[in-house]
């Protein structure tokens, strides 16, 4: 059941219709059951793992809070973190490490037999284990009291709008919302929730899915395409992943808002960033801030020598890359971002946290430069292997338009149109009032924008829904 499917629309309509007739406790129980149904729809067998991670996080946090000494608290924290890392490591990285070890032994001239278990990757595992780790860390840091109600905590772990691809919530933010009775959203808030859902659908169904085949074509067989088709393909992927993931996040926020629960904003127009540091302040914010709080800071953050700070930046981004999946391409992608961040820090470019200032005309060269760098690094992220990525870059320098360029003019027009759409949406979003998107527009203009969304969805729907990219992480 994915957000861009009719099944989800029906599921959510039923949830919403029942939800607001229930008292607060009933709402939580109902949301918990709905979340398990939502997750079980993918594969009910994986519910067991979710329940196990939930129970272990719940009980270890109780132990952290109840531990009599600092050492005992620390032990329970390590236990909590270890359980999640073992679960994540086994299901996500087991094959990767066995495969890499085998390659190393091969290089050393040893031909050892390879027995790799075919481990299923449980959908959303990276997200809910990170929820659990942040909960244990926040309990340890006494930022929050451990949750006493198991159903409320289980809902925190499995809340369906966030379960599959985030945003990665924090216990200190989401748990109080779940604990306390919720107000029915005002007309304006409900309207903004619907706008977010429609906007998210447009980003996914129209923008991301329109450029996805162009990216797939370029990355699938780069040989003989030439510079223009390959660069078009790389930009297509940059647009695809943004439309896909921010579209998902918008739908998650919109559905959640209709349930009276406000969740983190995950994107702040990242492609308007003037440097890589700003990019990471505005891209997948819930992950980058998670890495900042639970990895970068424990490593020492910037309260250490310059060199150690650069190392911390590099390590944080390297592991952030690995979080995306068990592949060297993600490691290289993260590592290169880490190097870029370290260089920017060394050259004195510091970006304050929070919503960045609106772009000005004089920022255009820096924005274009950052977009070019980020897009080039997406090539590693999207390629199946490092060799494929290098082959992609090599293909750019063979010819301007190669013999296997395909319908590159049409692709160029499509990608340009979608880039323009992203810029238009992000500029409109930049000027938003927090809960009242587009509210400054006249109602007729708002209606016209909704009409345009309907037209675009009519044209770009009609095929089986494609899953969101971040489901695989």
């Amino acid at each position: 059941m994915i957000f861009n499917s009719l099944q989800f629309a029906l599921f959510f309509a039923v949830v919403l219709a029942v939800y607001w007739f229930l008292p607060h406790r009933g709402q939580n129980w109902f949301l918990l059951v709905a979340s398990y149904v939502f997750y079980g729809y993918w594969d009910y067998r994986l519910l067991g793992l979710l329940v196990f991670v939930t129970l272990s996080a719940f009980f270890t946090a109780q132990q952290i809070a109840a531990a009599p000494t600092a050492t005992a608290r620390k032990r329970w924290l390590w236990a909590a973190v270890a359980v999640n890392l073992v679960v994540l490591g086994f299901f996500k990285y087991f094959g990767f490490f066995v495969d890499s070890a085998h390659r190393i032994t091969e290089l050393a001239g040893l031909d050892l037999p390879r027995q790799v278990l075919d481990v299923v990757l449980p959908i959303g595992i990276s997200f809910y284990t990170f929820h659990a780790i942040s909960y244990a860390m926040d309990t340890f840091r006494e930022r929050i009291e451990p949750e006493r109600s198991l159903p409320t905590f289980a809902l925190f772990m499995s809340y369906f709008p966030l379960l599959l691809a985030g945003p990665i919530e924090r216990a200190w933010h989401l748990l109080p919302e779940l604990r306390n009775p919720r107000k029915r959203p005002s007309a304006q808030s409900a309207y903004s929730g619907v706008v977010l859902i429609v906007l998210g659908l447009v980003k996914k169904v129209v923008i991301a899915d329109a450029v996805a085949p162009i990216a797939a074509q370029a990355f699938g067989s780069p040989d003989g395409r030439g510079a223009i088709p390959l660069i078009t393909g790389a930009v297509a992927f940059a647009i695809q992943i943004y439309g896909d993931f921010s579209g998902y996040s918008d739908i998650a926020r919109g559905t959640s808002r209709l349930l009276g629960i406000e969740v983190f904003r995950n994107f702040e127009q990242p492609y308007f960033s003037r440097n890589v540091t700003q990019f990471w302040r505005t891209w997948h914010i819930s992950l980058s801030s998670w890495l900042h709080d639970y990895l970068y800071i424990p490593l020492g953050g910037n309260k250490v020598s310059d060199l150690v700070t650069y190392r911390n930046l590099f390590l944080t981004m390297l592991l952030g890359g690995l979080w995306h999946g068990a592949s060297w391409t993600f490691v290289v992608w993260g590592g290169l971002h880490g190097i870029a961040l370290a260089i920017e820090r060394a050259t004195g470019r510091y970006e304050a946290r929070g919503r960045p200032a609106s772009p000005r005309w004089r920022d255009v060269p820096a924005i274009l430069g950052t977009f070019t760098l980020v897009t080039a690094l997406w090539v590693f992220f999207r390629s199946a292997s490092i060799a494929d990525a290098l082959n992609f870059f090599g293909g750019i320098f063979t010819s301007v338009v190669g013999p296997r360029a395909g319908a590159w003019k049409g692709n160029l027009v499509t990608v340009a149109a979608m880039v323009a759409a992203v810029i238009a949406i992000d500029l409109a979003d930049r000027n938003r009032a927090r809960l009242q998107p587009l509210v400054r527009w006249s109602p007729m203009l708002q209606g016209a924008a909704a009409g345009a969304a309907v037209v675009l969805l009519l044209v770009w729907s009609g095929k089986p829904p494609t899953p969101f990219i971040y489901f695989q992480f």
Partner: protein
Amino acid sequence: MGGSTVSRSVVTRARARWLAAFLAGLLAVVLLADGAVTLAEKRLAPVDDYYDVRALDVVHDMNRLEAAGVHSDAVLVGTSQMARGGVPRALEKQLGWAHIHNVALPGASTPVVKPWLLDQVVPRLHPERVVWGVSSIDFNGGRPNPVIKNYDSARATRPGILGSADRLLASNVALARRRVELREPIQLAHDLRSGAPAAKHAAKPMSKLLGPMRTTKGRHLKRAASYLQNSQLADFKATPRYVHAFTSTLRELHAKHIETVVVIMPVPSTFRAMHPHGDAQYQAWRRMTIAAARRTGTKVLDLNATEPDIDFPDYVHLTRPAAQAWSTLLGQDLRGIGWARATPTAAAPPGTSSASASG
């Protein structure tokens, strides 16, 4: 009290005004866009709602037959093996019927034949009989099969409520009907400039869709063998889904009182040997298929080894003369099981008669 009633009515009126303006904006954009597409539609080729141009041709042909009130005496279904190997005129000659139609589609494995036959062919041609030519490739669920996905994604054949909703939408809204063209603005602009609603392809009578095989040699032959081994027969496994599609179709045809014969299509020894476990695997599939068909009460004609290897220039399809001879043989076998009684015939429209369908 009175004040609050007044202010509430003011709020209600303001909201109503807001909603009216919002809806006016929304409808204006949607209706303008749909109107523009409706106007432009006259300069575009007819809508192509099928997964494959051949399926579209067959449907056009079946529509003409249906409009002329023609009911099929028998239809031939299956994959390209039947599309190329089944010659309606040869069968008509043997059986003495006037309306045998070859509606086989390339790549139509059993999960495709089921909806194609039951939802597209039977309602249009109302066949009294079905000849279903099968081979091991049609049952291979061990490899990814894009044809099934394409068939289920095409608007005309998309199953379920979503498919029905989309067809309903497309019949009323030009924006939805023309979405494929609208997604490619450059091609659309070109089509609109060129003006005439040139069909993307000239519709051909059914059995002319796939020409008879020419002799394949050298590099092409190697490529054909490689494609067969590495793609069509790769990881060969007659999976439950494919077998169920086969048997449930046969049962549904029985329930509709449509007499059905399953024909094990002829293949060369090289084809049989190309299965991952060789000829033994092919024979196991053959026995399983015959048993499964018989369990549904369907007659089976096993013609798998009736043609010499030399008649298969690409390991799969028969040459033109071999197709003619094999169809005659099939006709004789069908006559042998009592399929030769004469039936009243209706006039066929030009271009769709069995004469033109014989290829």
